[in-house]
């Protein structure tokens, strides 16, 4: 197993763990921040798979705009699940 494949599998496992944490957290604000971290991890995986277009889009949408919109939605509703 080469080094690149090893890093890629490690990133996939890390993404899975981050998604599980985002599901299980009871505080929705923390959950949104963990989801932004998962989105950045997914962008790195896309970049390693040689798709820089999708990586840029995923980083900008997932970590930038989606987080802001979720935070606004949480500030208008309840914070605890």
């Amino acid at each position: 197993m080469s080094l690149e494949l090893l890093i890629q599998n490690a990133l996939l496992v890390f993404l899975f763990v981050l998604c599980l944490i985002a599901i299980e957290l009871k505080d929705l604000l923390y959950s949104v921040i963990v989801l932004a971290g998962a989105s950045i991890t997914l962008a790195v995986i896309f970049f390693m798979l040689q798709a820089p277009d999708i990586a840029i889009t995923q980083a900008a949408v997932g970590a930038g705009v989606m987080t802001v919109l979720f935070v606004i939605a949480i500030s208008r509703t309840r914070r605890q699940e």
Partner: protein
Amino acid sequence: MAGMTVIVRTIARLLFPFTFLFGAYIVLHGHLTPGGGFPGGVIIAASVVMLFLAYGIERAQKRVGFLHAEVLESVGGLAIVVLGLFGILLGITFLQNVFPLGTLGQLFSAGNLPLLYLGVGTKVAAGLILIFYAMLFAFRGGEE
């Protein structure tokens, strides 16, 4: 939303031109480097939204109003359709690349592709700012 502390305001004010420039670079170089209209527009919208959140929505609304964003979004969509109709007028089919192609790899090349990307970038940036405004003003009074 009333704005944040002076640290956040200073950082946002210093960071805004670079973020905006990066978004404009991604939109304008969409036919040369990875990127394009959608990611560039999203980055521009994120930079403007960062400024709004730092300075408070009341001050921001005097600079970029609800109506500005609506008009810009419609202008971006209209520009794409008008460029498509140029293809019918000067060529054969809708959205045909009728402008001169230029040399490969230069900034002014590839016919109407940079213009189409400019329209898409304007439309996406204005549309996301519009969604942001609509969600922020949803459950409270306040004129547009």
